[in-house]
């Protein structure tokens, strides 16, 4: 802003002074003002190039100013560097800056790595010819930029307002509401003239609740028990039973893993496996099952290693494992050079998942819509830069590093030593490869030269000794020497690889070298500006690390995020819990509570829920209970045209939202139906041993490990999606997934029609049904009870009999032996039951 203001001033000023002819060189004196055209030319053609290509070494923010030359002010540019003047206004041929960028002179070539484009060079020549007009003054550069946002005004935005424990509204209908939550909903319905539909029947309810809390369908026995329970607490008993199920953590843990973009591989171009990532996955499941207070859950994931160790032996390492959340940040490219992107992924995820804010937009520029300046981004950046992330290996550095041992004392030390030694070998090897490349080229040329020596005609000139590419330059080692070193290193490496470490370790984070970060202009790590103190977002309090803080700042950050006074944390989580129950949040953009997100449909209810969450000691299970006991949760899915006409999308919840089962739910339910589900929790995946990893971007790690365990335990990669999850809109393993997409595609239909898994499950289901009862009518009935939780109607029974009869006939025609026809017909019938909309959708 300020800069543009100055430019406008410059324009205005130029109007007042006599215009300079473009051909006349402008004197360098401060009294002379450049012309408007000159400034425009400078701004358009010169300044951007200076900023992008020269400032890194020639500005006051340069880490080390090269040659004493500063080109970020007019004064600096005109003064020149250690070797004198670089610009002679009006005379490009006498300006050393022009000589340098022309790249003709071997002695001075700038920028050193890559020349400017022809056109840019021409612009500079023209600009010097014009007299090098330049509106910049030293004072202007030195002044700090004014705060870009009006925070007082920004705080008026609803999401940044403190959570207010709203008053429960008064409603006209005194009978409808079961709890206060309902009163919030009803008040809105009444205000909009909407009338809620009736309650869902018990079969629908128990199916809804069971999938909702466990990701599995209810068994016929569970349905039966609920249907026959006439006590007033029948429903509550169902909810309590489901909340206590170990499958609860698998379902709700999956929601969290969606947000945390969990994967079992690193995401670098070779997609290195991370065999210990599953520990974080299991920690999440366990935390949900234990109803770990949400604030504690967050704090552990940011800084669990810095919190006091849990007392129970089996939880001893949970704090460390929890920081797997940070280690899960995506890895990029082959080298550590792109680590700023891993930090960006961390900030992006912390921002969206925990705070519902797109903080990472501020990486390259101040956030355009929300009050998040770039300086806030780099205040957070410093914290993660001061953190050491476990390194899973990449194409060039194939060995793991900085994994956190889950043992104490000597054993832990041995792991560190082992990793360190392998890392050093990787580093040395890489240096030797670099050293070898020119030597190989030289070798090749020497061979060529020998050919030339045999046919001297091909030689046009004598080659001096210095020119002879066959001999190493002074101080340079020979190819043989380098090769020998490599062989020796390789042997040391093999020796280590031969004795792999068996120490338990975690893909986790730990304290690194603490230090503040510099702002990176346009998100370019090479283009650094001022240092910012590590701290929190200004709009959320702007706390900074104490001057005597010795750590990374993660512990402080964890406390700032989980602070009940933080207006976002409780709201964002209350909204998510609501969203997973109702299919849609009160804020329908659950990862974006900023001004580009959607405003809450029930702002008072959201605050009321957030208050209950904090008040209940951040218990998530209490929130489920509160929601599920409401009338609102128990509504039917029925359509009601008069309501649809006003509120087609059901924003005000006059009915329950129908939803398709998620990928994992479809798979797990099919396994469950056919009694094939392995309900035990899962440990590590069968990855190849670490010492055998040779993955490169040319031959990346790609695998698929099938099992009959719950879908949450499937191995998930970043470079390639798990095939089943891909077809049914599984979570994105590369970025936080707040809402699962729900697509309908012919590929999904082909799955039901032709996939071996669908056929296998249907066959097992048919066997289960066939073995349980013999009479065909009972078989039809049992299939309906298992799959839909209800009895078939007489029309449906009739339909089933006809189908089985006719299908058996067709099976015979198709050449199936007589003893398989009945089973095949029942399997065919079963697959259509499992593939039907009634099975795929939840009411």
């Amino acid at each position, binding site marked *: 802003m300020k800069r543009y203001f100055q430019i406008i001033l410059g324009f205005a000023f130029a109007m007042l002074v006599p215009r300079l002819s473009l051909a006349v060189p402008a004197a360098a004196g401060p009294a002379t003002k450049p012309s408007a055209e000159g400034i425009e030319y400078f701004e358009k053609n010169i300044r951007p190039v200076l900023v992008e290509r020269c400032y890194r070494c020639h500005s006051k923010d340069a880490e080390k100013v090269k040659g004493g030359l500063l080109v970020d002010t007019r004064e600096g540019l005109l003064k020149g560097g250690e070797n004198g003047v670089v610009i002679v206004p009006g005379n490009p041929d006498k300006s050393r800056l022009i000589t340098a960028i022309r790249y003709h002179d071997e002695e001075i070539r700038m920028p050193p790595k890559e020349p400017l484009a022809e056109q840019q060079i021409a612009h500079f020549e023209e600009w010097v010819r014009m007299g090098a007009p330049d509106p910049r003054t030293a004072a202007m550069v030195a002044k700090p930029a004014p705060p870009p946002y009006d925070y007082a005004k920004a705080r008026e935005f609803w999401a940044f307002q403190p959570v207010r424990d709203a008053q429960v509204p008064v409603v006209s209908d005194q009978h409808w509401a079961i709890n206060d939550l309902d009163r919030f909903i009803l008040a809105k319905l009444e205000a909009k003239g909407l009338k809620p539909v009736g309650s869902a029947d018990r079969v629908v309810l128990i199916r809804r609740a069971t999938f909702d809390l466990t990701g599995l369908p209810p068994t016929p026995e569970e349905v039966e028990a609920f249907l026959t329970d006439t006590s007033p607490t029948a429903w509550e008993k169902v909810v309590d039973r489901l909340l206590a199920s170990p499958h609860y953590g698998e379902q709700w843990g999956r929601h969290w893993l969606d947000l945390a973009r969990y994967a079992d591989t690193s995401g670098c171009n070779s997609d290195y496996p991370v065999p210990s990532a599953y520990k974080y996955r299991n920690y999440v499941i366990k935390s949900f099952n234990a109803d770990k207070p949400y604030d504690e859950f967050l704090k552990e994931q940011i800084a669990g290693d810095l919190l006091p160790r849990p007392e129970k032996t089996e939880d001893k390492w949970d704090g460390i494992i929890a920081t797997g959340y940070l280690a899960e940040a995506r890895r990029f490219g082959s080298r550590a050079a792109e680590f700023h992107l891993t930090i960006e992924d961390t900030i992006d995820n912390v921002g969206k998942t925990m705070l519902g804010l797109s903080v990472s937009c501020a990486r390259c520029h101040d956030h355009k819509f929300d009050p998040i300046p770039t300086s806030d981004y780099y205040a957070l950046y410093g914290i993660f830069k001061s953190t050491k992330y476990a390194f899973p290996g990449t194409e060039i550095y194939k060995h793991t590093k900085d994994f956190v041992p889950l043992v104490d004392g000597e054993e832990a030390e041995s792991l560190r030593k082992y990793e360190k030694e392998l890392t050093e070998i990787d580093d040395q090897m890489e240096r030797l490869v670099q050293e070898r490349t020119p030597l190989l080229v030289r070798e090749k040329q020497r061979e060529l030269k020998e050919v030339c020596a045999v046919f001297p005609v091909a030689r046009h000139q004598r080659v001096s000794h210095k020119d002879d590419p066959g001999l190493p330059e002074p101080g340079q080692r020979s190819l043989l020497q380098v090769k020998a070193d490599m062989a020796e290193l390789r042997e040391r490496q093999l020796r280590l690889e031969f004795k792999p470490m068996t120490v338990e370790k975690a893909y986790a984070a730990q304290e690194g070298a603490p230090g503040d970060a510099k702002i990176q202009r346009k998100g370019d790590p090479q283009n650094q500006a001022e240092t910012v103190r590590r701290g929190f977002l200004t709009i959320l309090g702007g706390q900074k690390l104490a001057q005597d803080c010795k750590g990374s700042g993660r512990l402080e950050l964890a406390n700032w995020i989980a602070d009940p006074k933080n207006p976002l944390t409780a709201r964002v989580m209350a909204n998510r819990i609501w969203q997973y129950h109702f299919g849609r949040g009160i804020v329908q953009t659950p990862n974006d509570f900023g001004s580009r997100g959607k405003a809450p449909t029930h702002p008072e209810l959201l605050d009321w829920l957030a208050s209950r969450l904090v008040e209940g000691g951040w218990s998530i299970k209490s929130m489920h209970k509160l929601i599920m006991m409401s009338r609102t949760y128990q509504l039917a899915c029925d359509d009601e045209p008069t309501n649809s006409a006003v509120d087609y999308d059901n924003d005000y919840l006059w009915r329950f939202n129908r939803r398709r089962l998620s990928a994992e739910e479809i798979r797990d339910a099919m396994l469950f139906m056919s009694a094939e589900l392995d309900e035990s929790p899962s440990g590590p995946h069968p990855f190849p041993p670490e010492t055998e990893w040779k993955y490169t971007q040319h031959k990346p790690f790609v695998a698929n490990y099938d099992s009959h365990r719950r879908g949450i335990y499937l191995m998930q990669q970043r470079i390639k999606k798990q095939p089943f999850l891909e077809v049914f809109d599984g979570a994105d393993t590369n970025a936080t997934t707040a809402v699962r997409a729900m697509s309908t595609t012919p590929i999904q239909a082909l799955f039901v029609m032709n996939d071996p898994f669908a056929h296998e499950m249907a066959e097992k289901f048919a066997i289960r049904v066939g073995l349980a009862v013999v009479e065909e009518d009972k078989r039809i009935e049992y299939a309906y009870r298992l799959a839909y939780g209800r009895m078939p109607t007489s029309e449906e029974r009739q339909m089933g009999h006809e189908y089985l009869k006719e299908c058996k006939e067709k099976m015979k025609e198709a050449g199936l032996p007589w003893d398989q026809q009945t089973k095949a017909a029942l399997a065919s019938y079963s697959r259509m039951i499992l593939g*039907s909309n009634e099975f795929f959708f939840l009411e």
Partner: protein
Amino acid sequence: MGVERNQFSRRQMIRSLAAGSILMPGILQQLLADESRGDVNPLAPRAPHYAPRAKRVIFMYMSGGVSHMDSFDPKPKLFADAGSSRIKSPNGRPYLRPLWEFKPGGTCGTEVSDLFPNVRQCVDDICLIRSMKGDHNDHFQATLGIHTGSVTFARPSIGSWVSYGLGTVNQNLPSFVVLAPQLPYAGSQVWSADFLPGCHQGTRVLAGAEPIPDLNRRSPSQAVQEMELGLLDRFNHMHQRKHPADPVLSARIKSFETAFGMQQAMPEVLDLTHESDATLDLYGLERGSSKGFGWQCLVARRLVERGVRFVELIDTGSNNNWDSHSDMKQHGPLAKNVDMAIAGLLRDLKSRGMLEDTLVVWTTEFGRTPFTDGPNGRSHHNSVFSSWLAGGGVKGGIVHGKSDEYGGRVIENEVHVHDFHATILHLLGFDHERLTFRHAGRDFRLTDVSGNVVKAILA
């Protein structure tokens, strides 16, 4: 054309189900109802922002980084100076002489090397760009860059954007098909729909027994499968009676018809028995063979002929590709695999009058250095490389942009990958700044925040 034929067969399928009394009365009309209802079907054909010059795209991507100065960008000075011990490149490495001589082709005389003798004969239809520039010098990132516009984060592929923007004409085939015998760098992210709806994802079709996963009927006979679909339809319609207004339920009912259609249509596309010997010769394809780029190109023609919107062809995968670090001779067999097939495709499309509204794109993730890397090879080079366009709305027989005398950098009319994408979308009738999708609080587009249409190459 194929489109009508396939729709007819689908209708026939529905009628035959009805005749066999498997379908309930009354459903027939509903099934035959207009397929173009956009609210139910995100793949229904849609009009772009303005009248398009091209209606479909065949996107050929050569994996590994094709050397421009050995193929489409002649550098006499590089021929002359390479091998001189005095002249060195700016980074000190010796220049490497290109292995293939350049000759003019067609009447326009655009020079192409002996690496692509057949494509050289087609230069009058080709708009060659010698000033391409990308953002990254590593395969993984640059491959994502040329496909999605982003070298860092996972984003939708260009084919997914086109599918999202235009929908597709033939509902029995996917809108975006990928013919890639091996996985490229970055795997299936290359054709991923990412945050766009899943139906816009590229469907990988392979030669062989099962071209798409689950495409082959597993039920023991056609009769059994038809019965099954009839039963499913009854289940779903009985269920829907209670919820008549839910478009998602009807969409899923419809998806089974489409799947059934695809099960018939895809093998028909891949069945080359009715192609004449002359046509097979054009592509350099032996009868009965499904190997090599000739097969990919011929199948691509058959796919676009039947209304598929975007066909991507990847010649190799993430290894044994154009990444000739140690020896440029490796380019030889790779070019031989694609050269005749590409020329055959261009000629075939032209003779069928399809080149006019089909855009053919040839590209790679980056070029290679003028100087050596390994003894006789070249390294990655994203500062400049060559690509070309042909057909739908581009000027044939021209060269756009220039690299310097050694092929080291762009000196005229730089075409950044974003510009390249903007131009392709423009030819399809889109303003690239307006083809957006709201995701995570912001409107995303293929060209991120840049991209200029290269007007000079528009016909």
